């Protein structure tokens, strides 16, 4: 009896660990596939032109190390300016999306009034229907307002773009705040404004972080609206700036690689710092 039993034991252990090995194998291969292209770009950005072509997969060595690409990029384009533009646009849009989004979400979940459902549906539709489809009129509108080629135009568009999802996610969270908290405050004669700014806003901080991430990424990475609303003369965002730069210097491999690296690295660093929050937001069921 015991002998009989020992055979499946060995088998099952072997089988179990074999499965684990295979799972790690698949995941590692995919991780490699996901990272390898980015890795190749970054290492080659630090090499001489000759080394880039001779052995693209080699890490830069003291012999092949070169920063000439970066020098060229910083010399020939206003990279710092693009970066600053992207920062300004992203942060301003983000601030307003969060603030206005939370306010709208609060109004829609807290108060009953005529048109409540209609407005809620209007915002919900914005989650699915891309704002891009209205580009023709948006450009008209911006030129009527004399805002073409300004960062203000971008900020306005991005606020409108970010609001629907923000309202949706924040509403879900505001709904979960216990009624008693607000009612207790009302009994103490606290104003509605104060209830929102001192009770509701602090309580939904985790949701705000989630919304921030979802809002920020598309704005930072967008090409469409910068291309159409603010394409030139010092108003480019980093995505557009890099696109134009590469289009212009497409044969200068050092510069192209350096430009790509400069566009990639800050995002990756930020991502690695905030990935915990981001992934928690993605997996917390905030978006269903």
């Amino acid at each position, binding site marked *: 009896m015991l002998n009989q039993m020992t055979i499946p034991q060995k088998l099952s252990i072997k089988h179990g660990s074999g499965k684990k090995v295979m799972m*790690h194998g698949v*995941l590692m291969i*995919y991780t490699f596939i996901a990272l390898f292209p980015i890795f190749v770009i970054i290492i080659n950005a630090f090499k001489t032109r000759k080394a880039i072509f001779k052995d*693209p997969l080699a890490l830069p060595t003291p012999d092949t190390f070169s920063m000439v690409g970066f020098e060229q990029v910083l010399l020939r384009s206003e990279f710092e300016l693009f970066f600053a533009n992207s920062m300004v646009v992203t942060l301003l849009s983000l601030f307003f999306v969060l603030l206005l989004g939370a*306010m709208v979400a609060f109004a829609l979940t807290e108060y009953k009034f005529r048109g409540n459902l209609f407005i809620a549906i209007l915002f919900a539709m914005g989650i699915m229907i891309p*704002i891009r489809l209205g580009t023709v009129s948006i450009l008209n509108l911006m030129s009527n307002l004399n805002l073409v080629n300004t960062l203000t135009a971008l900020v306005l568009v991005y606020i409108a773009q970010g609001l629907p999802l923000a309202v949706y996610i924040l509403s879900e969270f505001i709904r979960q705040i216990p009624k008693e908290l607000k009612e207790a405050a009302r009994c103490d004669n606290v104003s509605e404004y104060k209830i*929102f700014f001192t009770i509701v806003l602090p309580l939904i901080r985790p949701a705000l972080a989630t919304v921030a991430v979802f809002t920020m990424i598309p704005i930072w*990475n967008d090409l*469409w609206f910068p291309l159409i609303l603010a394409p030139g003369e010092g108003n480019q965002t980093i995505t557009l700036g890099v696109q134009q730069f590469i289009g212009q210097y497409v044969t200068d491999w050092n510069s192209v690689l350096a430009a790509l690296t400069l566009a990639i690295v800050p995002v990756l660093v930020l991502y690695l710092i905030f990935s915990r929050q981001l992934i928690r937001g993605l997996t917390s069921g905030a978006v269903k």
Partner: protein
Amino acid sequence: MTTSNHKAPFPWHILFFLAPGLLIYVSISVYPLLDTLWLGFFEEDESGQRFFSGLKNYQTLLFDAVWSEPFWNALWNNTKFFIVHMLVQNPIGLMLAVLLSSPRLQWSNSYRTLIFMPTMLSVVIIGFVWQLLLSPIWGISENFLYDIGLGEYFDAWLGNEGTALTTLSLISVWQFVGIPMMLIYASLLNIPDELIDASVVDGSSAWQTFWNIKLPLILPTIGMVSILTFVANFNAFELIYAVKGALAGPNFSTDIMGTLFYRTFFGFQLQSGSITMGAAVATLMFLIILIGVAIYLFLVQRRMQRFQL
């Protein structure tokens, strides 16, 4: 209440909370969209004078060979673009999610973080990255294929009319596989452990448990992933524009709705752009997305009940 005949004061606070957000959203998103739909019914003469022309733009777009050929070409390409995503991105995303969600898997967080990384980057940047990697001049891919014995299959995939679109689709899949992975992963985590334990006690193998228990329970998420993919795909533009430019070459073989819209609106080469024609193309994109969303809401989502777990 005995004092109910007192008229309640006007709820200024509601206006305060609602107005700023609503104003921006309506004036910069809702109104332009409606205005675009409206503009599609107009024509513009050389002097820039606009006049109402009913469905003429759509007639031109759908039936006049000069316009309809690019339109149907772009729509068909876009459909292929979407099909590749559905057939490659979502199954891979599902597989990775299933692997990641297996209990007590070491380094699960690291895999998740790293695999999601490309999704964070700009589509434009990703387009350039792959353009370089696939470039025959640099030859990284070529050498790589030679190293694993597949060298003879190398081709300038991005430059080839027959392969450019598929290649671009796969680049997009590569970038965005993290999204279905994360969403499905989250939904797999939501399945209570006891449910899986119960099926193990019932004697089902890992495969049977996946097929009979997990898959039916994550079907709503897969439905949602599909509609998100659909909307994103029929709204795509950047990748093609970055890699192939507005002309979506070679010979329009990578032209999709987004690039067609851009060209129609802004013009290219000798043809000048047309606001009204652009509006008509945008309207058709809007209708396509609307149909997709409607199918999802009324057919798919209604049939797939979200199970209370």
